[in-house]
C-alpha cells in the first residue's frame, strides 16, 4: 500500500470534482461539504455508459441517503462511497481511499498483486 499526493484541498472547489492522473489511471476526486464536515472521494473517471472520462465533471449531491455524483453525459448516478450505479447495480466504478494530511489530498494505491 502506498500514497500518492494529488493536490492541495484548496484546489478543489467545495461540492465539485476534478480529474487526477494516478499511476496512469484517470481518477475523479470530489469534495463535499456535509453536516459532518468536508468529505473527499475518489472514483474512476471513466463513465462506462458514456465511454468517456467525464465523471469528475458531474454534479454531486445526495439521493436516498446516499452521496452521489451524476454522470454529465447520460445522468446516471453513482454512489460516491461504493461506486455502485443507482440505476443499474451491476455497474460499478472503481474507488480509491482518500487521505487528507495538512490540507494535502492523497490517494491510497492498493498493491497490484491481486489484479
Amino acid at each position, binding site marked *: 500500500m502506498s500514497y500518492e*499526493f*494529488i*493536490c492541495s484541498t484548496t*484546489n*478543489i*472547489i*467545495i*461540492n*465539485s470534482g*476534478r*480529474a*487526477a*492522473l494516478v499511476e496512469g489511471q*484517470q481518477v475523479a*476526486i470530489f469534495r*463535499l*461539504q*456535509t*453536516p459532518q464536515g468536508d468529505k473527499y472521494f475518489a472514483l474512476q473517471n*471513466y463513465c462506462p455508459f*458514456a*465511454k*468517456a*472520462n*467525464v465523471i469528475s*465533471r*458531474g*454534479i*454531486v*449531491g*445526495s*439521493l*436516498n*441517503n446516499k*452521496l*452521489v455524483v*451524476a454522470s*454529465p*453525459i447520460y*445522468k446516471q*448516478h453513482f454512489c460516491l462511497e461504493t461506486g455502485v450505479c443507482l440505476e443499474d447495480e451491476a455497474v460499478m466504478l472503481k474507488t480509491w481511499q482518500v487521505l487528507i494530511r495538512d490540507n494535502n489530498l492523497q490517494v491510497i494505491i492498493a498493491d497490484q498483486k491481486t489484479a
Partner: protein
Amino acid sequence: MKPKVVVVGNGPIGHKFLECLLELQGQSESYQIIVFGEEPLAAYDRVHLTQWFETRDAAGLNMVPVNFYADHQIECISGDKVTSIDRDNKTVTSTSGRIESYDKLVLATGSYPFVPPIPGHDRKNTFVYRTIEDLEAITTAAADAKVGVVVGGGLLGLEAAKALHDLNLTTHVVEFAPRLMAVQIDDGGGNLLREKIEALGVSVHTGKNTQDIGNGESRAHKMCFADETELETDLIVFSAGIRPRDELARACDLRVGEKGGIVINNNCQTSDHDIYAIGEVALWGGRIYGLIAPGNTMARAAAHDLMPTDTKSEFDGADMSTKLKLMGVDVASVGDAHADTEGALSYTYVNEVEQVYKKIVVSHDKKHLLGAVLVGDAEDYGTLLQFSLNKIALPENPEILILPAFDGTAGGGLGVDMLPDAAQICSCNNVNKANLVEAVQGGCWTLGQLKSETNAATGCGGCTALVTKVLNAELENLGMEVNTDICEHFSYTRQDLYSLIRVNKIQSFDELITKYGNQEVIPNLGCDICKPTVASILASTWNDYILEDKHRGLQDSNDHYLANIQKNGTYSIVPRIPGGEITPDKLIVLGEVAKRYDLYTKITGGQRIDLFGARSEQLPVIWKELIDAGFESGHAYGKALRTVKSCVGSTWCRFGVQDSVGEAIHIEQRYRGLRSPHKLKMAVSGCARECAEAQSKDVGVIAVENGWNLYVGGNGGMKPRHADLFASEINTETLIKYIDRFLMFYVRTADRLQRTSVWIDNMEGGLDYLKQIVIEDKLGICNELEKEMAHVINTYQCEWKTTVEDPEKVKRFSHFVNSNDIDRNVVFVKERGQIRPATEDERAQCQEQQSNKVIAIAG
C-alpha cells in the same frame, strides 16, 4: 389468409375508422387493410381547413403520423379513385384499372359541396370550399381580385368569408335564408351575429335568391338576385351545403335515400351487410350527419362490428350541438335551438352593450333543457350541453343558467360532480366523464397528460374548460395533493423556489437549502435536478457570473464549462452571431481558429457556426482568440436565449417589408444571456413569406406593412407546435414590451425544462389568459416584469470574457488537477476532410498503436 377489408375514402372519417380498427386489433381477429384515397394527400383534418390560410402548410393539417401505414401494414393507395363495386364477386375497381377483392367494404367517400344550378355557376373564378386544392385555387385567384362573394351563410360559408376577408378582398356573404346560420341559431342570435360580422367589414345579404351570374361591368361577374338587386364581384365561393357522394352505392344498387345518402343500420351496415357506410355519405334515420363527431362515432361502430369485442359500439343518432368561433365571434347551438318541441318555452338574455345573445329552450314543465343559442359569449356551452344531453334537472329558475354572474354570487355554473359518469364530455372523440376520471385515477394529473391519454379536448377543443373542471374535481375527490415537488430536497415547485429566492433575496444554493430544504431528508445536499434549477433561477433573478465559486458546483456540465459537452467528453464552441449576420473578417477568424485547433465545423440550425472537438483545457485558449476578434459567448450551452434567426429582410429582399435582420440583432442583444426554465429560440421574418420560420420559435416576429406580428409558443423538436399569434400590427416599442413581459412571466411560472409551448398548453385559460396578463396587465405585474427584465439586461456580461480574464478560473479548465497531460482517451479520425470522434473499435486500434495523434482512415 387474413380476411381483407377495403376502405374507400381516406378523409378524416376513413382515417378514424383505421385508427379504431387498429385499436381493436389483438383483441379480436385482424384484417388485411387496404385504403383508397382519390386525393394525392393522405387523410387531413378538414375541420380545421381554414387554418391552412394562416400557415399555408398542408402538413399542418395532416392527421397521419409518419410511417403510420407501414407500421400497421396498411396498404394506402393515394390519388386513385374507386369507380365501381362488384357485389357478386366482392371486388372494387379503380381509375387506374386496379381490381381489389374484399371481404368487408367500408365506404367513407364523404360528400361534395352543393353548387346551386344557377346559370353561370361554372364561370371562371367560381370555387367551392372543400379541399386544400380549393384553398390554393382561391388564394391564387384572390391575388388579382378585389371583391369576393360567398354564397351560403352557414358555418362553412362564414369560414370561407373569413378566408376571403383575410386575403384582403372586399367580402360579401349571400344567404338564401332570412338569417345567417339558419339551421343552428334563431333570429335573435342571427341578427347579432350579422352585426358583429358586418362590424368586421364583411357585408351580409340575407334573403337573397341568386338567379343568374353573368358578365360584370366593373368586376368580372355580376350576380342578379330575385329581388332585382345586383352585386358585382371578381370571385365566387359556393358554400351552399353538402350532398353525399353515394354514386358508387347507387351504381351497385345499395339502398339509398330519396335525397341521397346510403341507408345504414346502427352498425353502419348498408343493405348489403358486407358493405358499411360511414360519415357524410351515410343516411341514418333519414338524416345526413355533416359534423365530425357523429362521423367518428360511425367509424367506431363499424370497426366494432368488424371486430366484435366485449364492448359494443353502435351509432344511434347524434346530438348536433356545436360551438365555434366564427370570425372571432363565439357561436354555439345546443339541441332544439328553435324551440320546435311541443310546449317548449324559452328564456332570452340580450346585452346590447357587450353584444351578447343567449337563449335557452326548456320543456313545458321547466324540468329539462331542450336547447340553447349563444352568440357573442359561448362560455356556458359546456354546462348547457351537459344539462341537455344528460337530462339533468334544471334549477328552479332556469334563467340563472344564462344570466351573468355579478360579484360571483349567481350560481349558474354546473358542478361537475353533478354529472353522471356516462356524461359525454368530448363529443369529437367520445370521451365521457368516467373515462376522464379513470385516467386521472391512473395518474394523469395534468391537463396535458389527460389530453394525450384520453384524446379529450384534442378535436375541436370546445370541451377544454370542462375537461379541466373534471380533472380538478377528481384530484380533489382523490384527496390528492399532487406532488409537484421539484425533487426530494425541496418540498416546493420551481415556481415556489423562484418566489422564495426573489422575495427573500436569496443569493446562493446553500442559503436556500439551509432555510428551505426538506428537513426530513438527511443528508440533504441537493442533486442534479434541484442544483441546476436553482442555478438558473439565481441567474434569471440576480444574474451573477455563473462560475463564481458558490455557483460553480450547481451548474450542469455545459454551463460548468461554458461549452456543449459531446459524446467523447470534448466540447463544442458556438460564438454569438446575432441575427446570423457576420462580417467576412469574423468568418475568417472562425475558420482560422477552427483550422489552428483542428475543430470540426458545422453550421447550426440557428444561423451560427459550431466548432466541435475542443478539449476542456483548450476552451479558454480558443475563447481568448475569439474574444480578441470581437466575439462573445453564444450561450449555446445554457438553458438561455440561444439565437434570433432572421431572413435578410427589406434591406435586400424585394418582398421584405421591414428590416428583419436589424430587429433580430436588436432582440438578440437585448435578451442575450437571459437564463430561463428551458432554452429559448426566436426568429424575425421580414414579410409574410416567413423565411426565418418564426412560427416554429418560442418567440416569433413577422413583419407586416404596419409593424410586427408577434407569435409565441412555437416549437420544433420531438413534438412540433406552431406558435400562436399573440399580437398583430404592433410597433417595435410595443413588441419589445410584450416580449419582456412574456419572457419574464415564463421565467417566473414555468416548470423546470418546460418549453414555452408546453407551458402555454398547460396554462389554465391558455393563450387568452396569457394575453390578459401580458397585454391587458390583468394581474398588475407588468411593471415588475419589465423591471426584472431590465435588471437582467443591465447586468449582462460575456461569461467567457470574465473567465479568460481570471487566471485562477482558467486553471480549472485543465483536464487534470495534478498533471499537464491531456485526456489520452480522446481520439479523432478524419471523415470528409474533418475530424470526428473515433468509434470504440477505432479507438482501441489507435491506442494499440500507442498513438495519440489523429490517424487517417483510408476511404
